[in-house]
């Protein structure tokens, strides 16, 4: 790769030297790539413009957040006093924020596991549900299931939240309508999102509903990437379907599973859209309150920007710790060295 590339540059840069053979040599390094207007403008625009936007709107705010988190800034006043780690002390002694963090941790444990298991099972049905004789084949008409399961991924999260808010509605909602018509009269006007024992589970289900199809498609693609000979060999050796799924399929797509786990976990640590659509106030007894909601409220309603930035830093560090843990666990249990993100 590098060899070819050097050749390109030499050819490219060598041309002027051929045209004027006895021109005095410039600085020997420069002679290889003369800086023409074409090249300078090319680099300036191609690298400069995207980087400028990226640095201004993404990197600069990220860096500033760390600085703000050490001040007592209230946003609209000019005075910013450096108060060290005081904000962090306040956060970790704040019961409401700790409750929110607990909810996030609950989400980060449950959501990826439920979503991944469900989508793996469905993906396995799609790919190995067909005949066991002859060539390995998937389930008939499976593309219909794939297309339908993918629907929720294309719907804006806020629309999903609003829609499910209506489905869970105690009196006019679809869920209680179905349950009462099946004879479960105790659910006649049961407030799924208003009762603290079910609010979190109901919310989790909405997020799972939104993502199972996407990960199912991802896993189906991963399973189809496995050479058919491997399945063939396993079958000839007498492995049943279940054994094949556990011993062949899952180990071979474990990088896909790891990617899914990280994405789902990062989503669970955010979860802002779903939570604010389903229970904007944090739910009964703060049972569905998450860190991101608390951050948003602290910043844009209370105007405590220093404190909110500190919450952002805590959120970011939690995310990094989570990703690190997933990588570590995968590595320790013998996962691949090349990890696709």
């Amino acid at each position: 790769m590098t060899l070819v590339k050097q050749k390109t540059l030499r050819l490219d840069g060598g041309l002027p030297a051929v045209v004027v053979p006895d021109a005095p040599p410039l600085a020997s390094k420069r002679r290889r790539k003369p800086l023409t207007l074409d090249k300078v403008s090319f680099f300036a625009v191609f690298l400069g413009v995207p980087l400028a936007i990226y640095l201004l709107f993404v990197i600069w705010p990220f860096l500033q957040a760390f600085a703000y988190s050490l001040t007592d800034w209230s946003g609209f006043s000019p005075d910013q006093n450096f108060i060290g780690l005081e904000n962090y002390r306040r956060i970790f002694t704040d019961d409401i924020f700790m409750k929110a963090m607990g909810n996030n941790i609950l989400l980060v444990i449950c959501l990826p596991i439920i979503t991944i298991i469900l989508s793996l099972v469905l993906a396995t049905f799609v790919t190995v549900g067909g005949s066991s004789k002859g060539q390995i084949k998937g389930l008939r008409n499976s593309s219909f299931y794939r297309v339908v399961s993918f629907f929720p991924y294309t719907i804006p999260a806020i629309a999903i939240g609003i829609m499910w808010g209506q489905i869970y509605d105690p009196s006019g909602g679809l869920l209680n309508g179905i349950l009462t018509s099946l004879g479960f009269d105790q659910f006649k006007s049961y407030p799924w999102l208003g009762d603290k024992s079910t609010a979190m589970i109901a919310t989790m289900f909405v997020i799972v509903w939104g993502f199972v199809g996407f990960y199912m498609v991802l896993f189906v693609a991963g399973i189809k990437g496995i050479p058919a000979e491997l399945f063939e060999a396993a079958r000839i050796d007498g492995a049943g379907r279940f054994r094949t799924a556990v011993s062949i399929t899952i180990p071979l797509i474990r990088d896909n599973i790891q990617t899914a786990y990280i994405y789902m976990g990062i989503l669970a640590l955010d979860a802002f859209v779903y939570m604010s659509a389903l229970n904007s106030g944090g739910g009964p007894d703060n049972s569905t309150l998450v860190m991101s909601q608390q951050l948003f409220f602290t910043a844009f309603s209370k105007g405590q920007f220093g404190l909110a930035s500190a919450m952002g830093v805590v959120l970011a560090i939690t995310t990094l710790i989570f990703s690190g843990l997933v990588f570590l666990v995968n590595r320790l249990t013998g996962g691949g060295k090349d990890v696709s993100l």
Partner: protein
Amino acid sequence: MTTKLASPEMKSLHFNPRKPATTPGDKVVGAVSHTALTIWSLIVILPLLWTFMSSFKTSSEIFASPFALPSQWRFDNYVKAWTEAGIGSYFLNSVIVVGSALVIVMVLGAMCAYVLARFKFFGSRAVYYLMLAGLTFPIFLAMVPLFFVMKKIGLLNTLPGLTLVYVGFALPFTVFFLFSFFKSLPYEIGEAASLDGAGEWRTFFQVMLPMAKPGLASVAIFNFLGLWNQFLIPVAINAAGPRVLSQGLAAFAGQMGYAVDFGALFAAVTVTVVPVLIVYVIFQRQLQGSVSQGTSR
């Protein structure tokens, strides 16, 4: 090029023209599979159908029975949602913002990825890792300072400001994905172009960019979905500006708590969902191909 990229999905395991004999075990497994997948499909479709049906009902009809069909198929709710609730103008704003952000981020992202993938220069690795860092940090961390950056440069609560921020946050993913794509294009072609006298600009726009079309299409689809569904950024930095669809929908649902007009709410949700769903059904082959491409690298 194209065939190489499409291969993971082409090499599907099913669609065998010959029909092999089936054993009883196969039938059981097949039946179980179909049942499980059908149940999940129903769980996905029923809420959508219910929302669609309810969008034609009046509030009192919705409360009378969640299942009954509307007494007549009236479009009042849609008119109400489109005009009174302003979903029409939010929709237009979303189209403008997401459309222009998409074009800009695809051009800038492709340029940046091309330079990073094709040229070795001082700091190219650093820039690459800087892009990667943007993918790992949660957007939330940036929201508060971003608010003040936008305020300082006078773009807070404006659509151009929102567009630029969308571009910034979609850039790392775009660059990251296209980086590996440009790396895989053969170097001989760039060489040939420069021998024929094309400068760097022409080589990129007339040779490289057309060759990168399949990759660009995949990234564009994902960026479109991501930006169209974006909620946090507009809520944080465009709270008082002209609303985009996701933001307007949330505001509309928030008001609903007081002035109950559920029919119009369902209509608003339907208006949001249906166009994307139609686009998806048309492009679903491409999209599912991109999911496999994006992950089986």
